[in-house]
């Protein structure tokens, strides 16, 4: 079963700056990207979002849950 990974966007305000889950995950499950792009302007840190993408690779080690300073990540064994 593919694990369920949820990230609470309200708790994770500036993921590109925090980046703790992205860098600790042994399976490189996460991805971070801007939610908008403008001409002649860099995207503000608040307009980024982190998502769990490669969930099939997650081994449920819980490193991301432990490292997240805001308690934004929930990881559970998948159900069908």
């Amino acid at each position, binding site marked *: 079963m593919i694990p369920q990974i949820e990230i609470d966007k309200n708790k994770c305000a500036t993921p590109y700056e925090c980046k703790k889950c992205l860098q600790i995950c042994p399976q490189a499950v996460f991805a971070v990207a801007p939610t908008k792009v403008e001409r002649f302007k860099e995207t503000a840190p608040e307009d980024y979002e982190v998502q769990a*993408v490669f969930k*099939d690779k997650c081994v449920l080690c819980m490193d991301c849950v432990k490292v997240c300073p805001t308690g934004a990540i929930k990881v559970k064994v998948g159900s069908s």
Partner: protein
Amino acid sequence: MCELCEKYGDNGGRWYLNPENYARPLYKKVEKGKEKEPMILTELQGPFYYKPLIELKDNPEAFEKMREGYSKFHETMGGQVVSLEDAKKMVEIAQPIARMDCICRRITRATLEDGEQRPRTCLGLGVGMFRWEEWPERYKGGVEFLSTEEAKEHIEHWHKRGMVITIMTFGTPYIGGICLCDYPDCLAIRMRLDYGIKPMLLKGHQVAKVNYEECTGCGTCVQRCQFGAIKMEVTTKKSNIDMTRCFGCGVCTYACPQDAISLIDREKLPGLKEEW
């Protein structure tokens, strides 16, 4: 011959050495620069779009069906592994060449190659690079234009440190960049190896072979392969390259202190010549 060479090669030559594939036609003028924005956003959000496919990993039939759709899309935007030798020929054709931040690593590990602590790896090609300042988010950290010689040194430096050299197209066959990639932070390698999206990264025109007489079994090459193609055969004390898994990147050939690995032309091996 690989499919891209068949379609876009110059008289049977390798497609990426055909100068025409560097001259992307600048079709219609972009109205007030509006249309480009969603494309850049799509590119930067790349992996988010694979979530529906990955969710189906437990359901082989549905996965396979959706995978075909993704593969079809990547026929217009993908790449291929190239050897150091070929990459050096490419930078003689392509102008201008700009060193820029690697977008994959920014997405997967939130790292920015700022040019000081983490020297940049990616090379953007073509006149489009002159307009980089229009999209500072896409070209975060700025770009740096390189001469042909500097580009060769750049590629060689990273390749010898273990990076795979790949080409990326934007609207195949137009070549937009030369990348220096590794697993798992490179999305192209990852989508090909883990999810079978073939046109995202075709194998290269060569393939590596070990000369058993020269190999001392030191194991250096085993750690270097980004494609998991090399194993140490404990009993024979030689490294073994599975040539059906090898992408022909050449990283192992530079890692071997005995010079025991050579790259040979894929097309000379009947068993591999259709294997891309």
